[in-house]
Structures are given as structure tokens and as C-alpha cells.
């Protein structure tokens, strides 16, 4: 029953994303034909033809219905810049972003969990203070600035752009090493900025668990401290963090925009930035609908995961 409610909520959210996309990029900016024809020699007849082709001569509600219908068929319109279907342009950039965001999130989560657990266990120790301080400082750092500094500071160590060189040998291993080599700076940038949240939540979540009475019982039973920690406290404290990973995916996506821009990483974030400089409203609309939609879906997924992992919620 509650799952159905969650799914229903997600559907509502998704449709709100769609409405917002239409409103933001079709209603506010005005005539897309003017944007599209900039810098190209056009006649009023050509503009009128374009307007008819894009259905802009129809009343707004009708335009909205058309937009909806097209969206359901997977048609997000044509990019002003690339003169190609928006969905095609977006889909070829998904891979690199998944690689960057996936790797970074994974490492950030592992790092955050480890530091959080250690910090909570030795609360107020020097380690706890220092690691909390470092985490908060990095958390306060603008992503792009950190990226620029890293690029300046590392000199020759890492490539300055992109995901691969154009002349790396075609074999799998050399390609993988090349990509990994390119991945280091962008992922370090992204990890540094996002890991703090996982550390903080893990730390406080574990602290709450440590107050719980069952731990006292476990200790009273004579279990060793590290066993208590590993077997009982950590798994329970882990749950909120896991859902947080998905809840905060939006933040990582935002970080990816600036990181990819600084390092010319050929993913969705870079595409987003390029679409901004136009601005290419059709592409921006597609990107917003796709990223926001993905985050909504991820949240439902997180919710389901939570249910699977935590028997207490399942029973409720």
C-alpha cells in the first residue's frame, strides 16, 4: 500500500518535472525561433515556416499538449545548436557522466563511511576533530575552484581535459588505463566536495545507535567492543546513509556540471554548460527533464532499497 503511494508520488513528481520544463524553457524565454535563427541568414517566410513546424503558431495549451504527446513518444524536440534530436544529443553523453559520477559517489561513500565510523567510535579524539574539520572545510569549497586549483597544482601529472587521448593504443587495457588516468582529477575534485555529507551522517547516525540500549546489552553480554561495533551498531547506522546516497544524488549532479566544465569531461554536465552559453533552450529543457526525472526515479529506488534492507520498515 505504501509502495503504491510512493510510486504514485513519483509519478506526480515526474509530471511536475515535465510541466516545469515546459514553463521554464518554453513560456518564459519567449520566441525560440529568434534564438534559433541568430547568426543565420533568414527571411520572415523561413521564420514563419519554422514557427509552423514547431507548432509555435498554436495557442499555448495546445502547444503544451503537443509537447506532452511528443515527450511520451520520446521526442524532446530539436537542439538549436546541433540541429539534431535532443534525445540523441543527450544519450551520447550519458556514459561519461555515469562513469564519473558513479566512481566518485562510490569512493566518496566508502571514504565517508570509513571516516564517519572511525570518528563516531572515537568521539572527540584528535582523529575525529581533524577529520570533521577537514570534511567541513572541503564541504564549504566551491567545486570549480577546487578543480582549477588542482589543475594548476598538479602540473604535468594528469591530462588537462577529457576522458581519453586521441592516440591511445586500441587495446582494452591501455584504453582503460588512459580513461582512469583522465578520471583522476575530476573524480578527486568531486569526491573531495561530496564525501563530507556521508561522513557527517554516518557519524551522527552511529552516535545515535551507540546510545541505543541493545548495545549496552550486547556489551553486558561480554562481547568485544569492535565486534559490537561491526556486528550491531554499524549495520543499523548504515541504513540512513544508504538512502542519503540516493537522496543527495542531485547534489552530485550539480557538482558534475562544474567539474565536467573545468575538465572538459564529455558528459551531461558539460553539455548542460554548453547549452547555457547559447542558450539552447530545447536542449536545456531536455537535460532538465532527464536529470530531474532520473533523480526522482533514483529516490523511488532508494525507498524500495530501504524497505528491502530494513526489516522494521518492511513490517510497518
Amino acid at each position, binding site marked *: 500500500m505504501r509502495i503504491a503511494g510512493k510510486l504514485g508520488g513519483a509519478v506526480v*513528481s515526474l509530471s511536475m518535472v515535465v510541466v516545469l520544463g515546459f514553463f521554464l524553457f518554453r513560456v518564459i524565454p519567449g520566441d525560440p525561433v529568434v534564438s534559433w535563427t541568430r547568426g543565420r541568414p533568414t527571411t520572415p517566410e523561413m521564420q514563419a515556416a519554422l514557427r509552423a513546424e514547431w507548432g509555435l503558431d498554436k495557442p499555448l495549451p495546445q502547444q503544451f499538449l503537443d509537447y506532452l504527446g511528443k515527450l511520451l513518444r520520446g521526442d524532446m524536440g530539436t537542439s538549436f545548436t546541433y540541429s539534431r534530436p535532443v534525445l540523441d544529443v543527450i544519450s551520447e553523453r550519458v556514459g561519461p557522466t555515469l562513469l564519473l559520477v558513479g566512481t566518485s559517489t562510490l569512493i566518496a561513500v566508502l571514504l565517508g563511511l570509513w571516516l564517519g565510523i572511525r570518528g563516531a567510535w572515537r568521539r572527540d579524539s584528535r582523529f575525529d576533530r581533524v577529520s570533521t574539520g577537514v570534511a567541513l572545510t572541503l564541504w*564549504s569549497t566551491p567545486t570549480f575552484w577546487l578543480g*582549477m586549483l588542482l589543475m594548476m597544482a598538479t602540473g604535468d601529472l594528469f591530462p588537462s581535459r577529457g576522458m581519453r587521448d586521441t592516440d591511445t593504443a586500441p587495446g582494452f587495457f591501455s584504453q582503460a588505463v588512459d580513461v582512469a588516468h583522465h578520471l583522476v582529477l575530476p573524480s578527486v575534485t568531486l569526491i573531495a566536495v561530496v564525501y563530507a555529507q556521508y561522513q557527517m551522517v554516518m557519524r551522527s547516525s552511529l552516535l545515535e545507535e551507540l546510545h541505543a540500549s541493545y548495545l549496552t546489552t550486547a556489551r553486558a553480554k561480554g562481547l568485544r567492543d569492535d565486534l559490537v561495533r561491526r556486528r550491531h551498531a554499524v549495520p543499523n547506522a548504515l541504513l540512513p546513509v544508504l538512502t542519503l546516497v540516493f537522496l543527495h544524488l542531485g547534489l552530485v549532479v550539480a557538482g558534475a556540471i562544474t567539474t565536467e566544465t573545468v575538465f572538459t569531461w564529455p558528459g551531461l554536465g558539460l553539455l548542460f554548460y554548453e547549452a547555457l552559453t547559447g542558450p539552447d533552450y530545447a536542449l536545456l529543457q531536455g537535460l*532538465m527533464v532527464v536529470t530531474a526525472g532520473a533523480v526522482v526515479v533514483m*529516490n523511488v529506488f532508494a525507498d524500495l532499497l530501504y524497505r528491502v534492507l530494513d526489516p522494521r520498515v518492511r513490517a510497518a
Partner: protein
Amino acid sequence: MSVVWDRRRTAWAAGWRAFAAQRSGVAGLALLGLAVLVAVLMPLLTGADALNVARVVAPAWEPPGSGHLLGTDHTGRSVALLVLNGTAVSLLVGLTAAGLSVAIGTLIGVTAGHFGGWWGALLMRVTDFFLVIPALVLAIALSSVLPRGMGTIILAIALTSWPSTARVVRAQTLAVEARPFVERARALGGGHLHVTGKHVLPAVLPLVLVNTTLTVAYAIVAESTLAFLGLGDPTRLSWGSMLHQAQLQGAVSKEAWWFLLPPGLGIIAVVLAFTLVGRALETVINPRLRG
């Protein structure tokens, strides 16, 4: 009535003592005080022509030491003066955006909690939606379709960062309204305005305060990010616009670390200060964190 005020005053005083017991929070507060002082005083202390590109005579890209504490930028202006003068706009944008954001969040949270029913459910649905959507992505989208300017940036940040406040405030509103004294007030004929204004708002105020400090931290980083992406107002001097200039003029190639480091460190310092104060306040309000 004065009894109530006395009680509140003692509560706030106790809160302050709990806050003062946390060194990091106090350090953050001191840093903030310093930043505000700089923001207010610097425009008065800086000579009229010191930051006027058409009037400065120093060579561009001077490294630190040669007459300028932190060197000069691409136009020959002193980086130290720029950073100090940039404090005002960065703080202003952060505070205004956070204030607006928290105001929206509080209004929606209290309304949703107080009225409940389908109206409250609808408000929470909207809140959840905005909570899920990546705030910065939405802020970028908003500032790309609205006309450039400081107002747009403030609006874009505020309109996308209110949901967490709304959630927290709603939960607190529900908790407060379940207490006997509110029920009594209601039984005695207190209207919606009376209940929310006299009972709910004062009770959620500490929470709102915490959220404001944390939102300011977010807003300052968001401002710099928007400026970096070229969506800011380049005619106004802020830390974000300085970094934007640094990037545009090739500070990384020039290895002009003196132009790149100070604005970023300024952002970190102020954001960190707000975060520390926010966390300390959180501990005051939620003693469980104190342990």
C-alpha cells in the same frame, strides 16, 4: 504576559550559554562578525579610484609583494582590496537569498502543518518535489531564462532552496500544535493567526535560525557557482565574479595563484563560519547531539 517573556528570555539565555560552550560555534561567530565588519567598513575605507579600472596605474598581473599585498589582477587593481570589497556583495546575496528562502520555507511549513488536510498534503507534495530536484540545476535553469542581475541570482537561489526548511518547520509545527497549551489556546477561541503567531512561530524560531545559517552557507557557494558559469552579474564585485574574471582572463595559465586563491579562501571561510554556527545551534536545540 511578561511571565511568558521572562520564560523565553531565560530560555534564550540558556541557549546562548549552551552555544558559548562550543568552541567551534563561537569561532564561527567571531569569523562572521569579522566578515560583516569588513563588508561594512571596506567600501568606506577604499579610495574612490582604487578599484576603478580606468584610473589604476599599477601593471596587470603583478605577483604579491611588489607594493601590493596580494598582487594585482588583469587590470592592475589590488587583489587584496578586491577581495575585501567583494565581501559585501557575497554576504548580501547569501543573506538575502537565505532570508527569502527561509521565509518561503517557514510560510509553507507552518501553513502545511497548521492547516493539514488535503491543502497540507498538497503543499508537502510540492515541497517533496522541490526537495528531490537538484536545487543548483534548477537555480541554473532559472537564472538562464531570467534577465541577468543580482536580483535574479537571489531569486533563483531562494526559490530552489526552501524545501528543507519547509519540511523541518512543518514537523515542528505539528509537534507544537499537539502540545496541551496550544489546544488550550484553541479552546479559548484563539484563531489561526493567534495560534500560529503566538505559539507556533516562537517555537519554530530556533529551528528557523539554524536553517537560515545553513542556507546562507549554501547560497554563498551557489552564488559563486552561478557566477563561474557566467550567469552572474559581472558589473558587481563579489567573490564569485572575481573567480569568473580569473577564469575568463586565464589566471590558471598565468599561474596567478594570488588572483585565484584569495576569493576562494574567502568563500570557504565565510561558508565554514556559517556552517559551524549552524551546527552549534543545532546542538543547542537538539541536546541529543550533545551526548
